[in-house]
């Protein structure tokens, strides 16, 4: 009796904390969304009011569609994010598997070396990276961004995944070897499905900073045809005049794809966790 009451009390408290946090986290997004549908005057008069018949306006979205090459930026962001994520997951998982599974000289040293990038921000090397990209002719290409983001994401991916790979049963891999599976098949068909939750975690961790990044697109690929969405939205922000309608509309639209990707990955996350628990 006492126990149940305390449990329900704890549950309510936990939910209150979580709901409170959700509200705080979603509030800025909410403000951006409602203001993107308002006239410029209404945005400044009552920033927190919902759009009504009087203040409702699609002018921001119209500007974005007309002025910037919005869909191109969108496409660029998508390509960069998805290709970088794919490369991070593929190479990260392979490196992690090698570190976790094979005994070779300098294994630990190699693991430390690969994890070093977690502690050193890649932006410190911006100038060197730019020089490198210039001399290899990769400036103003999406390839430049993909390479940089892959390098940026790999250390954490290797670090997280190798821990998980060590947890995969040796017997299972050996059973695969006895059944004649090649090392690649063991990796792709036995090990990867078992570390899927960890892969989803790594994907979510890497996806959002890549999608939102302004620094490297601005420095490595500022040309019109390779602009990313975040960089493209900057055309509406001027030194003296800012087209807030357009900025808010562009941001609202930028949220969507990253949200869809997040939902996909978090499903994997939940499925992975429950499948482990039921077993």
């Amino acid at each position, binding site marked *: 009796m006492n126990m149940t009451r305390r449990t329900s009390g704890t549950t309510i408290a936990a939910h209150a904390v979580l709901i409170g946090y959700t509200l705080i986290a979603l509030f800025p997004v909410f403000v951006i969304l409602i203001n993107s549908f308002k006239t410029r005057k209404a945005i400044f008069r009552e920033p927190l009011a919902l759009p009504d018949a009087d203040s409702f306006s699609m002018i921001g979205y119209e500007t974005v569609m007309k002025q910037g090459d919005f869909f191109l930026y969108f496409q660029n962001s998508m390509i960069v994010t998805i290709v970088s994520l794919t490369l991070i997951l593929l190479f990260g998982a392979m490196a992690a598997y090698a570190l976790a599974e094979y005994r070779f000289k300098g294994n630990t040293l190699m693991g430390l070396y690969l994890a070093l990038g977690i502690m050193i921000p890649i932006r410190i090397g911006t100038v060197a990276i730019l020089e490198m990209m210039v001399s290899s002719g990769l400036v103003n290409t999406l390839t430049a961004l993909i390479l940089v983001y892959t390098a940026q994401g790999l250390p954490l991916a290797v670090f997280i995944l190798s821990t998980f790979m060590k947890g995969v*049963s040796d*017997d*299972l891999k*050996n*059973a*695969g*070897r*006895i*059944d*004649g*599976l090649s090392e690649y098949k063991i990796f792709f068909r*036995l090990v990867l*499905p*078992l570390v899927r939750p960890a892969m989803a975690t790594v994907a979510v961790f890497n996806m959002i900073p890549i999608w939102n990044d302004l620094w490297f697109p601005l420095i490595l690929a500022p040309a019109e045809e390779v602009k990313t969405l975040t960089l493209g939205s900057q055309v509406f922000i001027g030194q003296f005049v800012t087209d807030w309608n357009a900025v808010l509309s562009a941001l609202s639209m930028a949220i969507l794809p990253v949200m869809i990707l997040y939902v996909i990955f978090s499903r994997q996350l939940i499925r992975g966790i429950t*499948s482990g628990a*039921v*077993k």
Partner: protein
Amino acid sequence: MTALKLENVNKSFGPVHVLKDISLTVEKGEFVVFVGPSGCGKSTLLRVIAGLEDASSGTITIGDDVVNAVPPAKRGIAMVFQSYALYPHLSVKDNMSLGLKQEGQPKSVIAERVSKASKMLELEQYLPRRPAELSGGQRQRVAIGRAIVREPKLFLFDEPLSNLDAALRMNTRVEIAALHRTLSASMIYVTHDQIEAMTLADKIVVLRDGRVEQVGSPMDLYNNPANRFVAGFLGSPSMNFLERSVPGLAAGQTLGIRPEHLALRADGQISGEVTHVERLGGDTNLLVSTDQGEILTVRLFGQNDTDVGAHIQLGFDPEMAFRFDQSDNRILPLAA
């Protein structure tokens, strides 16, 4: 014909010498059990035979072929793991047929072998299920089925019963013995449990610290242990070793007597006090502290009403006792 022949096999992990000069043979159709305390190298030896580890030196022959450089899948072996190691995302049927598919066997052969094995192991109704939907005993049978369908020259079992509860362990033990009779295949079985070793084996290999201590049939090892380690390892409760309680022993010598060979006798040579009694119904085990301060176990058949604190005299048949020298080797009795 021999199924497996090991000649001077050594294995080192860096500076650690795990297997030391192991030589042995397994005859065709023989059930051989590797037994020893944990860390004695028995699992490593099995993995070397399977090809999951490379031997540092020595030759391994399976059937007629030297297989040192042959990958596990091509050695003609099948292995059953302690943790079952079933593929979690495949059905029971696919778990069993994966190895055959990799070998490139035609579908008809695969279907036939899977149905034969599943009938033998009573797994037919579980074929479409995933391992997660099976009980521990069923999973172990699937693991055994996966080994059977490959029709290997040599079965390898790595402590297959350790994850099962006591009742299931007994059943599965009987099933494995029956399986061995039906298939008359060569099998190697690793365990740390001397009861499994005694009940299943045609031949027991006792290992300690990476060395073969003794090889022989279960009764051979029980009746004629080569040294104190083997004598103490096999038999339950384990053998009593006395240095002071029995008169007539030279310094450094030890007398080994199995608990079942001690008897309550008024004229017995050993006297002591009962410190604990275990009544099992069929047997009664007494823990006795001798007057010389040594602890020994006595196994009495049937029920006995001796109580804790009783002072008793114990006797034994000298022919049933073993003597060991200072370095723990057996001193064979002089031919009478």
